[in-house]
């Protein structure tokens, strides 16, 4: 146990310096109370991540009312980086023919969703 306690912080340290950049520690939403969970995502994110909110709002997903949870899931099933299967719910034809080794957002940047990068 002792070793573990040493190992973990040191690994976290490594993580912080690695080239992956601003990586979130785990694929989890910050803890919220049950009452707080009864809030539409945008209510907080308009302040918490204003740039992302703005990009989304002006995108076809924003105009077309495709909301945060449709890609990122809700608290029990939350993903910072969405599973591509959630893209495939609507874009299954495009998903099937996308180039190998590429994610959807490699070419259609997240929250802008231009036709191509």
């Amino acid at each position, binding site marked *: 146990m002792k070793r*573990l306690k040493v190992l973990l912080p040191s690994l976290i340290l490594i*993580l912080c310096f690695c*080239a992956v950049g601003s990586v979130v520690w785990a694929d989890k939403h910050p803890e919220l109370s049950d009452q707080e969970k009864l809030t539409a995502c945008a209510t907080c994110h308009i302040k918490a991540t204003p740039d992302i909110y703005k990009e989304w709002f002006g995108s076809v997903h924003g105009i077309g009312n495709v909301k945060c949870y449709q890609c990122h899931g809700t608290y029990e099933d939350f993903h910072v980086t969405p599973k591509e299967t959630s893209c495939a719910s609507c874009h299954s034809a495009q998903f099937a023919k996308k180039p190998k080794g590429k994610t959807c957002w490699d070419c259609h940047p997240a929250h802008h969703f231009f036709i191509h990068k």
Partner: protein
Amino acid sequence: MPIGGFIVNVHPDHLENSIRDLKKISGLEVYGSDEKGNVVVVLEADSSKAMEEMVEKIMKIENVLSVGLTYFNVEDEIEIQEEQGKKTIH
């Protein structure tokens, strides 16, 4: 036996060589990579200490820029330690 998921960041120009070097480390599996030099690696070691040593080994490989932990599971190690703990108490 702890299991860890890592992103090993290598110089994109030397991706293939670096992957070959990585694969030489026993207990290390390469699961994927991209052209930006990100390599998905899973480490399996007998103990946390051993894994720490493996990470140090990786760091020493030429063209490896960084090693980042993204997933860490030690459930059986904790179980073993708990078992041992119980034994010492009783």
